[in-house]
């Protein structure tokens, strides 16, 4: 059954996943757009850089983040200077970690979706008097809808399931940095298999229903596209 800690963890998890996804989309969208349009020579370097965190085990990435966020680390000093306290063991720190780790899952589908639009629809919108921002929002974004669904699903789900980074820099503080994935993990480690099954099962079921709804909606709308 869901005890108080698990419930807290659920809330923190949803908050973390939601906020991270929003930030990922807010940052990732312009970045992906820029990458899909630029002819910059060094573009491949930036693309590689974005995908790079993937190859590190999350706990190891978390370890380096921990060092970077620590009192002697570069990020730690900056955040200390801004907010008066280090980022480690705070919810904000988790968000930073999740965003870095999930960035490629958001940027890559978006970049692909934007690329496949081609330049024509944007040109048409320009001739119809739409400003760059306007045409981005009213043409590029809706045409890249499936890319956004993929980006959001991968980003959100991956943040829910993410665990290594969070474990490393979160400090497992109930109500603040203890997320569901760690709660389930703890149950497994503590040999409380019953609780683990319950939590994991619930999480799977809820996620499954959410995903089915998301994909169904995407499909409903996608009927608008189709054709050649």
């Amino acid at each position, binding site marked *: 059954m869901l005890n108080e800690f698990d419930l807290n963890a659920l809330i923190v998890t949803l908050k973390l996943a939601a906020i991270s996804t929003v930030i990922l989309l807010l940052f990732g969208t312009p970045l992906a757009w820029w990458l899909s349009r630029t002819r910059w020579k060094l573009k491949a370097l930036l693309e590689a850089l974005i995908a790079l965190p993937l190859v590190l085990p999350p706990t190891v990435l978390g370890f380096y983040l921990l060092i970077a966020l620590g009192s002697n680390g570069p990020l730690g000093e900056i955040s200390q200077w801004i907010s008066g306290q280090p980022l480690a*063991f705070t919810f904000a720190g988790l968000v930073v970690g999740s965003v870095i780790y999930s960035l490629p899952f958001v940027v890559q589908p978006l970049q692909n979706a934007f690329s496949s639009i081609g330049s024509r629809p944007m040109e048409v919108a320009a001739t119809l008097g739409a400003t760059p921002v306007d045409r981005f929002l009213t043409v590029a974004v809706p045409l890249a809808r499936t890319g956004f669904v993929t980006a959001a699903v991968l980003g959100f789900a991956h943040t829910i399931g993410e665990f290594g980074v969070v474990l490393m820099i979160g400090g497992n503080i109930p109500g603040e940095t203890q997320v569901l994935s760690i709660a389930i993990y703890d149950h497994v480690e503590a040999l409380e298999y019953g609780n683990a099954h319950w939590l994991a099962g619930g999480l799977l079921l809820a996620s499954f229903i959410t995903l089915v709804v998301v994909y169904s909606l995407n499909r409903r709308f996608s009927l608008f596209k189709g054709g050649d």
Partner: protein
Amino acid sequence: ADELRVAVASNFYSTIKVIAEHFELKTVSSSGQQHKVILIPGSSGKHYAQIINGAPFDIFFSADTERARLLEQEGKVDSGTRFTYALGKLVLWSPIDNYVDLQGKVLSKKDFRYLAIANPKLAPYGKSAEEVLKSLKIWASLKGRLVRGENIAQTFQFVSSGNAKLGFVAYSQIRTPDHTTGGSFWEVPQSIYRPIEQQAVLLKDSALAREFLSFVKSDESLSIIYESGYGLP
């Protein structure tokens, strides 16, 4: 040459590595062939789950007594082989020199934002840390400042990276055979916590496994264990 697969609690990994090297050298000189001890570090909870599901380990060095005992109950263990191989000692450590005093009074001063402990639910060192704080009657008042590592290694990283000013870590972590880590520490007196009994069990009987287990119990090994910051059983 034969291979021996030894699952070992992460905190004991660097210690047993030295023991295993000695053992390998010794078997070469005695039997003329080099046996291999393959060490598999990990959390004891994970090792437990793996052993239950058929992991091909010969010996299991648990971080506590409980998992070893459970395995014995479930008949995964050669009966009568469970024994305590080391006693974990808890210290309150900070990388800052002269910060932790020799009585642990720093805990009551509370001029720190975070105190790191291992997760009491998962790690025996965490459970002991909880015991200490409770017997000092500051458990409740410190609750808001606790950050919990998944295991004792992570707890150490919280502190050593400076994210937590101090924390309860294993003595073995700040004291290795080669060197002692800097900073200041308080060795928690055994009067306010039960030292952490770490137990091992034999999973798959073989001459080599038994040979290794008796080597662990030998004086040569015990001195390595002691040097590494553990108490002796």
